[in-house]
């Protein structure tokens, strides 16, 4: 059944380029010769390794366990021998410990014990056990979200996928409709809510049609608008509730989970499969054969690109994630993590590499800012070194870093980078 949606009037319409990979069914990726599984694939403390170099593990075996409440278990994604535990760089900077496993090609597999009975507590426990985190990009441990401090009445399954190029959630919604609905119902059971809304942008009519026929879930048809997938704006569009600054969605009675997370919950509860792989989109004008792939965690980006026929000759810019919020890569020597939804290769024509010019105060950034901030003021005060003014006048701490302001900026200002720097400086000062 479809529900009425609200209209949030900021944001911007972007050519979504989804047709490059929207028609490609999800392909299973053969396990690579070796994987490097990061211990920090989520928000919170990195997991603690429970294996040592030389140990032999199976696919689905626990190799690192959650360290504290806000952390997540990590599992082996191939069967083989642990050959190293070493520091590896992360796409967004910094580094993390990785467990490197050499594939022995035997594909031995273990799974979690089947659940005796499905109760809210057992589902919550299983989600924690299976190491499930928010797979839309933030990577917040799902188990923590399932025990909100305030009463909630609505679960929104986020299938907006507003980032251009990315189609992994779209493909999942078409191919695994029932499983996602089932996973959403399990999440709803754990939360004790009745209302489950699947939120999908109008540019995915086939996914909307599929979910429309499923019992027990409501479908919200969202206008195509970036950043529709932002938690706060999704909640407003679906329920009309506004999350106040500094508050969590649970404070207005809503929990938002990504479709991929819902699927992972289904697989963990019903099939006993821990989080060992995820679907991601490899796309962009610089990739010869764009595809949607089911990738074992820890697979190197190079391996994925080679599977997609490699890059075209004019490929220039490599991005982990979507083109709006993703990180530029300086090499392809990174490894898939739980939060990776895309790997893009753009050509010099698509990628924005023009130098910034002077701000002409046109006000376009303020006009499109979904958080109703003043990006031009943040930029001005940050570059002047007055971070307090950037906070007070520009409202920098409320920024969701969606990049809409920089997208529309005619002067090509690096607004997002200013904002990130300002936030960093304010954090240091505190």
């Amino acid at each position, binding site marked *: 059944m479809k529900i009425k949606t609200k209209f949030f009037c900021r944001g911007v319409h972007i050519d979504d380029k989804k047709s490059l990979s929207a028609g490609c069914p999800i392909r299973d990726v053969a396990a690579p010769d070796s994987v490097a599984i990061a211990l920090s694939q989520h928000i919170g403390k990195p997991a603690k390794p429970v294996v040592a170099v030389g140990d032999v593990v199976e696919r689905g075996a626990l190799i690192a366990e959650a360290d504290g409440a806000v952390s997540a278990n990590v599992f082996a994604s191939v069967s083989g021998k642990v050959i190293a535990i070493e520091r590896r760089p992360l796409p967004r900077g910094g580094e993390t410990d990785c467990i490197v496993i050499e594939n022995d090609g035997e594909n031995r597999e273990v799974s979690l014990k089947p659940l005796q009975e499905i109760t809210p507590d057992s589902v919550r426990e299983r989600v924690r056990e299976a190491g499930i985190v928010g797979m839309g990009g933030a990577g917040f441990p799902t188990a923590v979200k399932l025990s909100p401090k305030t009463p909630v009445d609505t679960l929104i399954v986020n299938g907006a996928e507003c980032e251009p190029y990315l189609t992994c959630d779209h493909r999942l919604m078409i191919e695994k409709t029932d499983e996602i609905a089932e996973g959403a119902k399990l999440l709803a059971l754990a939360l004790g809510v009745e209302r489950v809304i699947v939120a999908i942008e109008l540019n995915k009519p086939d996914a909307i049609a599929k979910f429309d026929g499923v019992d027990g879930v409501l479908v919200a048809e969202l206008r195509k608008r970036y950043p529709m997938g932002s938690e706060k704006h999704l909640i407003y569009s679906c329920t009309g509730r506004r999350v106040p*600054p500094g508050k969590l969605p649970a404070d207005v009675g809503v929990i938002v989970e990504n479709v991929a997370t819902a699927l992972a919950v289904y697989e963990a509860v019903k099939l006993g499969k821990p989080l060992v792989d995820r679907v991601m989109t490899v796309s962009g004008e610089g990739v010869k054969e764009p595809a949607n792939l089911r990738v074992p965690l820890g697979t190197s980006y190079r391996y994925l690109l080679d599977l997609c026929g490699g890059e075209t000759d004019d490929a220039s810019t490599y991005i982990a994630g979507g*083109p709006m919020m993703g990180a530029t890569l300086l*090499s392809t020597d990174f490894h898939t993590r739980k939060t990776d939804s895309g790997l893009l290769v*753009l050509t010099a024509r698509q990628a*924005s590499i023009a130098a910034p010019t002077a701000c002409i105060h046109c006000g376009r950034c*303020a006009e499109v800012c979904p958080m109703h901030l003043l990006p031009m003021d943040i930029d001005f005060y940050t570059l002047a070194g007055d971070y307090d003014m950037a906070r007070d006048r520009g409202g920098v701490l409320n920024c969701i870093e969606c990049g809409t302001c920089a997208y529309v*900026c*005619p002067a090509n200002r*690096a607004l997002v980078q200013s904002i990130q720097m300002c936030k960093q400086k304010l954090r240091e000062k505190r």
Partner: protein
Amino acid sequence: MKYLVSDSPHIRGKRTTRGIMLDVLIALLPATVVGCIYFGGAAVASIAISVVSAVAAEVVFRLIKRENIKDILLNFDLTSVVTGLLLALTLPSQAPWYVPMLSSIFAIVVVKMLFGGTGKNLVNPAITGRVFAFIAFQSVMVSGWLAPSIGAISPVAASGASGSVSTGATQLTSMLGGNGLTVSDLDLFLGTGVAGCIGETCKLALLIGGIYLVVRRVIKLEYPVIYIVVTGLVACAIGKDIGLFVPSILSGGLFLGAIFMATDYVTSPHTRVGNWIYMALLGVVTAALRAATKIEVVSFAILLMNLLVPMFNAYIRPRVFGAPSFVKKLKVKLAEAREKRAQKTDKEDAQ
């Protein structure tokens, strides 16, 4: 393997500063062409002098600042062309050659470049250039208005005859002076037989340019509309005559100022609400100053309000998405106060 690093967002919209300035130039085209037809070769020369000296002033200034000539030419953003053209359109056609030249050099060097170039100026360069000309070359700017070569279609009195060389005063000054209009509203709209600056007489041409800017989303429709309507209404209120509405919005440089100058990004508030208030205040200031001084004051009004823009930016800021509205906050505060009072009385009762 070559990696090109881009900042997020890695894709960008197609709008550029140069593109926006080009749109403004295109929008000014009808007014420029009509001005040249109305006022002949003198107007063409005036416009050319103004534009060339504006561009030259910017290039020379940046060369003196030891900027690379290649950088200057590659990153040339057309703003000085817009300034030069706008300035020329606000000057009378028969002004001697040094008036447009000196005014546009003043506009570019003093008003724009000395403050840091594009985007850093406090006041609109073209407006300030005109005000400079008004003060420095008063004899030209106050009395020497020329009527266009095309005469009024429907003159009210015989004095507005076709081909008159110099009327001495514009329709607006004559109206403000209590002498009444010599042409009909239609003539005011088309600029036929109306003395005035090169670009300001034909409102139709300006309107076409304004519609182009609105369609291209360079300016917002409501900004000039608010300015023009408020000016007309306040003029009616001051004159206590509703009939003043149409002549007071159609005469003088109001259309040129409202569509092209008040909406200048750099010197108008950042936010939409700020702009509404700004435009309304501009209307009030324009009408009031017109009534007080009996001369055309659109440029002075805009210059005055330009100086207040930092105040607008400091105090008029949008409410963050999800933050409680003013009314809501007030309600919460009232509820708190009521609760406190209730507690107090409870305590007193207990005592």
